[in-house]
């Protein structure tokens, strides 16, 4: 069984909900139009199509586009050794989708990390706390409108942050362009502009 065949089978089970599979560098990606159905789709993928190993869940910030967030699931099956990627969109206003911790328990920490870094909440998650940052930290650092240098924050008696001196960074350079700080919108703090 190839990854494309499993993708077609999954698509047939959820007619109209899953897009035509797209292939890039030999990897199959399916887009799911309704994030609310993710747990159902994942359960079928696990129990009927043999995707018993959830490799990773991650998030994208399509800053400036709507819907703003994309959640990316990487599935793998130890039986057929196929890899499958599922993507679904979450709008900024809604900012939440149901958890898949009921399907794979490894989703627990991945979802906590997405909540911590991107601010997308997972409904029904057993313990949705920050994981890398501390409780009470007010920002979501992997969002594109969060500056690379960081923002000042203070949780009394827990931790504080100050913006980092970037010394002319961020470090991406284009010959002949503006200087790096002026060119890079993410380094500026939007409120002060």
């Amino acid at each position, binding site marked *: 069984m190839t990854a494309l065949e499993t993708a077609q089978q999954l698509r047939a089970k959820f007619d109209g909900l899953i897009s035509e599979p797209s292939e*890039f*560098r030999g*990897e199959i*990606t399916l887009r799911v139009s309704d994030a609310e159905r993710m747990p159902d789709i994942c359960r079928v993928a696990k129990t009927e199509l043999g995707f*018993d*190993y*959830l*490799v*990773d869940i*991650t998030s*994208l*910030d399509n800053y400036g586009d709507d819907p703003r967030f994309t959640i*990316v699931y*990487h599935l793998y099956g*130890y039986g057929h*050794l196929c*890899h499958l*990627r599922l993507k679904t969109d979450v709008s900024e206003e809604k900012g939440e989708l149901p958890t898949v911790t009921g399907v*794979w*328990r*490894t989703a*627990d*920490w*991945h979802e906590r*990390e997405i909540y911590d*870094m991107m601010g997308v909440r997972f409904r029904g998650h057993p313990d949705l706390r*920050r*994981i*890398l*940052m*501390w409780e009470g930290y007010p920002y979501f*650092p*992997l969002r594109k409108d*969060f500056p*690379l240098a960081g923002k000042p924050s203070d949780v009394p008696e827990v931790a504080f942050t100050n913006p980092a001196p970037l010394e002319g*960074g*961020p*470090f*991406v*350079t*284009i*010959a002949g362009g503006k200087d790096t700080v002026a060119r*890079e919108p*993410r380094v500026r703090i939007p409120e002060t502009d």
Partner: protein
Amino acid sequence: MTELREIQLPDAAAQASSAENARELRGEKMVLNMGPSHPATHGVLRIVLELDGEIITKARPEIGYLHRGDEKIAENMTYTQFIPYTDRLDYLAPLANNVAYALAVEKLMGIDQQLPPRCQYIRVICCELARLSSHLLGVGCYAMDCGALTVFLHTFTEREKIYNLCESLTGARFTTAYTRIGGLSRDLPPGWVDQCRKFLKEVVVNIAETETFLTRNRIFMDRTQGVGVIPKEVAIDYGLTGPNLRGSGVEHDLRKAQPYLVYSQLKFDVPVGLAGDCYDRYLVRMEEMRQSVRILHQCLDQLPGGPVNVPDGKVALPPKDRVLTRMEELIHHFINVTQGVNAPPGEIYFGHENPKGELGFYINSKGGGTPHRLKIRSPSFVNLSILSHLLPGQMLSDVVAILGSFDFVMGECDR
């Protein structure tokens, strides 16, 4: 006439057996804070343990003390500039991280099949040296956690030789940054192959001696057998990878399942455990070291000649002497350094069999020299998530044995 009299039992144990006293003796549960700075947590892991006597009733791992925002940093620099940051993920096997990251970017660019054979062989050598180095440390520290200090000093002698090999290969002992997109920063130095062969002869003796210290050691076996048992289904459900997964009896190794570089042409076995306890995870690591030595011997024997970089000046930097004398190479060099390699729009995931498990890079590109999003799927992060399931019910003193058997690194867990 018989008289009934109530007598008081002097024995404390007998007293405890009555229901009323038992409630009193059970007392309150105690919360114990282990870490973030504790010799057995191998870095800055903190576990909040709730104890009922010596039995753990609840465990809550707290991570993030080493969080440096590597994924955010990656979005703000070119692909090549991020290579030194990969050294700091699993800092016990930096060479393997370098190779994994370079292969991920090359997969995105579609040049992973065009790598010159010499480059592929040298990368395999790097990966296996990193595996030896990581497992030597893992086994040494594990023995130390279980009370055998000698093994630690014994395996570290051998790791020192690997560091010397790294130094002559890359110029750095620890932070190697050896790979480049489409190749390597330099070829093998003269005499390196012979040094490596000499090292392999010595390391097999060391591994055999380490084995005599531990494998049939009564104390070590009592400490690790039947402790921290992870059944196969639970290991898969929690997404464990690497020796921790294979210790639970799942025969899965990305070098066999999704062969990259020249692994499909090399002969090696994938060891698996039976019981899924700490002892099996230790045994898997010991056997993997022997298999790494086997792979290294094959690579050194078959090592082909030729270039180590892809011949495309738009990907790998041209040779310096040509940059200094020729117009086209100078332009390639300039564009490559200032703007980075020109990756196409698209997204890829590449999983690499690192010493600790599956190190994966998910790259989402909108084209150009920088990634739009780079996600690092680190094995230690996922492996540690099982702790809150595994620790309850275990003895407090076994926490050290279980943590050691996972062989995690907080550098890649927190990123």
